[in-house]
């Protein structure tokens, strides 16, 4: 079997019988050394015979290449510096720099100039070096070869020239099938023809395979877990009213978490349509926190700082128990951006309302959710959140990392349920997703979850397990 390149050489030879390696390289546009090695291969396969000779060749040195384009220094001196006039030797030196000595030496030698009393005088008005032509087109037979070699502008070498003779006639390329086409199949011209072989062992060129984004897949799987557990997905907007982000969640208006630097504010005010709800929330704040609640503060707009805002909206919609809902969405917080912090990230928030839901039930829900994402061991720590009581933080045992804080949860404060007029008891929880996603997807920098480098996405292997 012949490779594509071997085939090209054989095709070339079949039309002319004989050729030199030089001609093959030029005519087929192939690299000279690879032509030589391909010819050796063809010889070993008994397809061609080659006769190797060495020819003298001359090659330009680096300096030679430069002179070939710019001209020899003495030529430059006559034509560009002197221009038929006398010039002070120091001026020549300044203008020519390193080439000065060469120009003076060869100018004297060739009797082109005279140097006297610190002045260079030209003897000719214009000059073209006869050896320049040889330099531009090196011909081993030129009389100037030796002088140019001596000036270090050319070097002599030897070139291997192979004279090639085709021994076996081989079916030419045109008679072989390169691409199998509809026409060939219809007219059956493939019969009695060979298929041009391909180098099937070579690696292929790049193919832009498309796939899902690994972090979005993780979010999808979390959704599947929640839906599998009987929860209804709720989606709400990024722009939120403080009323839902804070007030309804029992966060007093002077609470430190409501300070300007803890959320992104948006110009303008929102307008809560349910006036009963507004008065209930006002009453809740004034009764329990003992201050005068300001409706204007509650109207301010912001980018939601937690998905509990979605839970608040769900509660405000008046769900009747038994009720199970969840949301997975982005939240926004001002922070310094680094390997573990970005300005927008995802949270999962869950809500269960039942006639008789208890803290013990809540711990069971958390345990089950974590079991479904492969975290078998969990432990619970007392915690504080403004909107839940009792409150708990759930920790999961994750491989080498040990106990990792996963979720904040608790029984929704009765004040909130009273304000939204929801009967029964409710458990709620929230968890940050990015850190979990980093653990599951083996990502060391949270910013890689939002990589703007397509090669990173292309090179990421798909996960075979969850």
């Amino acid at each position, binding site marked *: 079997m012949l490779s594509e390149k071997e085939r090209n050489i054989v095709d070339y030879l079949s039309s002319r019988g004989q050729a030199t390696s030089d001609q093959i390289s030029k005519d087929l546009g192939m690299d000279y050394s690879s032509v030589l090695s391909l010819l050796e291969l063809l010889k070993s396969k008994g397809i061609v015979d080659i006769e190797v000779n060495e020819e003298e060749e001359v090659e330009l040195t680096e300096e030679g290449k430069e002179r070939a384009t710019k001209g020899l220094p003495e030529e430059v001196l006559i034509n560009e510096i002197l221009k038929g006039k006398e010039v002070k030797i120091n001026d020549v030196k300044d203008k020519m720099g390193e080439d000065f000595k060469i120009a003076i030496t060869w100018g004297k030698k060739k009797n082109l100039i005279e140097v006297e009393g610190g002045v260079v005088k030209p003897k000719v008005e214009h000059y073209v070096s006869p050896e320049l032509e040889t330099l531009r087109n090196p011909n081993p037979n030129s009389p100037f070869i030796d002088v140019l070699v001596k000036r270090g502008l050319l070097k002599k070498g030897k070139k291997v020239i192979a004279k090639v003779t085709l021994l076996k006639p081989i079916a030419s390329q045109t008679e072989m099938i390169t691409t199998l086409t509809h026409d060939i199949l219809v007219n059956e011209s493939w019969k009695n023809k060979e298929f041009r072989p391909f180098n099937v062992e070579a690696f292929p060129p790049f193919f*832009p*395979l*498309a*796939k*899902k*984004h690994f972090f*979005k897949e993780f979010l*999808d799987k979390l*959704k599947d877990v929640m*839906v*599998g*557990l*009987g*929860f209804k*997905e709720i*989606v709400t*907007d*990024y*722009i*939120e*009213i403080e009323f839902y982000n804070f007030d309804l969640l029992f966060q007093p208006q002077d609470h*430190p978490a409501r300070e300007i*630097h803890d959320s*992104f*504010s948006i110009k303008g005010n929102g*307008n*809560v*349509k349910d006036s009963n709800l507004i008065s209930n929330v006002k009453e809740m704040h004034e009764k*329990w926190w003992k*201050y005068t609640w300001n409706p204007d503060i509650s109207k301010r*707009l912001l*980018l939601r700082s937690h998905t509990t805002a979605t839970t608040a909206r769900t509660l405000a919609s008046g769900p009747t128990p038994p009720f199970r809902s*969840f949301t997975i969405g982005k939240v*926004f917080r*001002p922070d310094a*951006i680094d390997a573990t912090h970005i300005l*927008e990230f995802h949270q999962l928030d869950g809500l269960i309302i039942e006639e008789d839901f*208890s*803290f*013990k039930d809540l711990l069971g*829900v958390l*345990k*089950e959710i974590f079991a479904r994402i492969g975290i078998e061991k969990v*432990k*619970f*720590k*007392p*915690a*504080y959140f403004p909107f839940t*009581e*009792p*409150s708990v933080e759930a920790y999961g045992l994750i491989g080498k990392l040990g106990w990792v804080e996963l979720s904040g949860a608790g*029984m929704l404060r*009765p004040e909130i349920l009273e304000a939204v007029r929801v009967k029964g008891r409710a458990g709620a929880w929230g968890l940050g997703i990015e850190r979990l996603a980093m653990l599951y997807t083996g990502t060391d920098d949270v910013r890689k979850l*939002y*990589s*703007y480098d*397509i*090669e990173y*996405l292309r090179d990421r292997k798909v996960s075979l397990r969850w």
Partner: protein
Amino acid sequence: MVTINLNRERLLKKLNLREDELEDLLFNLKSESKVSGDSIEIEVNADRPDLFSSDGLKRAIDGLKERAVGEPKYPVFESDYELKVEEVRKRPYAIAAIVKEIKLDEEYLKEIIQLQEKLHATIGRKRKKVAIGIHDLGKITSKTIVYKEVPLDYKFVPLGERRLLEVKEVLQSTNQGKEYGNISIDQDRGTMPAIMEENGNVMSIPPVINSEHTRITQKSKDLFIDVTGTSLHAVLQTINILISNLAEGGGKIYSVKIHSRDRIDIMKREELVIDKLRVQKVLGLRLDEKEIQHLLAKDRIDYFLESSSIIIPPYRVDIIRDEDIAEDIAMMYGYSKIEPQRFVSYKLGTYDNITLIERTIKELSIGAGFQEVFTYVLTKKDNLIGDYVVIENPISDEYNAVRNSLIPVILDFLSKNQHSRFPVKIFESGDIVVRNKDNETGYKNERMLTIALMDSKAGYEEIQSPLHQILLNLSIQPKYSSKESPYFIKGRSASVIIGNNEEIGSLGEIRPELLKKFDIKYPVAIAEISLNKILTHVY
């Protein structure tokens, strides 16, 4: 979380604990500890300010270890000091108490200052709501203390100074003055609140600074404490926590007679009747009354069987109703001992329709050979065109607006991938934010799908044909209507129309001037459609 710093050796000695024991006990008090050198950092939850000093920690841990149970009763003796509260418009409430026989040394003094500062930061809302002044009683010459407004040219020697300064100089030239001076100054009347001796000596100008004259030192034995603020409730809570902790540390509390419009008693203990059944149901635990009583005793709270009630210790400002008591009972019972109730799901839940359409359209886009990408919602104003939401308090110019289209974000993505292997075919489904006057916020999210091609050539048809097939697969027959767009080359720009003339998106070849703006040197074709708009047609 509030972090307090204590001397490690001293704390362990005071609590009579080993370090690992301390860590476990704190875990059950919602707190965490971290040792660094000679000191120990304790993170306490903001709802338990009574734990902001070693005295409060000792009280709680003594209960957990059952070294001391039930409410610690700190007697309140009467003193012959009085506080006259006059009208102070910007900061109307003031209260005072005396704690005697305090054994101060360098560490304890530091701790009391720390407790004061942490109370300022939390309940005090950075001194806006509450501020505390602690004075050496021995240096106070009069039995009558007055809280009133003083003019800004009134003079006193503030803490850390040697000479008399006018109040306004103090506000302008001291660090505390600059930081807190604006809180209670009455600009209209040109006054500041002041706690003063009867003879006119200023003891403090709350919430800014005390006087040098009444400075507490390690030699101080008896303390005069004033608390002022804008909320009577918070002022009372603060003084109660402070003096309860000092009393736990060995001090004796003396009341100061308060003359004011409001009737104010320090260390008032409220009764709370507990609905036992409700507590049991909230927790899901069957606890009999004796157990409840025992657990609350460990929590340093007295429970009375006859009346099913508790007395809320004055320093426990976090307890307002049954659920708060339920949490305390659970903490004393031990969260680790509560066996989670096995969760049963009776039926499958549901996905939001937007999730369903998104999943389908993502499959189709991948089938069309587009790689999914995930970009940020926040971007810079410069990248966006048209009406978009601006962040009022951005922390970086790179993220000062909310995207109103995926196209600029996708162009930003492409501009960073010009050296990658071509062709670059990407898609994203993600939310943008647009105006919507019907919503309570005036805005709404819209889920968009954007498919994009960047290659040595990227023509209109090369993005139109995959889009067309995606829509046909959703049983949607689109029409394309030539339309000018700021994104696309004129004559190579169209809207996508479905159903009854509804525009669901647009497509085209990106304008060279826009490519130049994003520093993109290859042609790009993009289509963007709204999944929310498609939803109304497919379901």
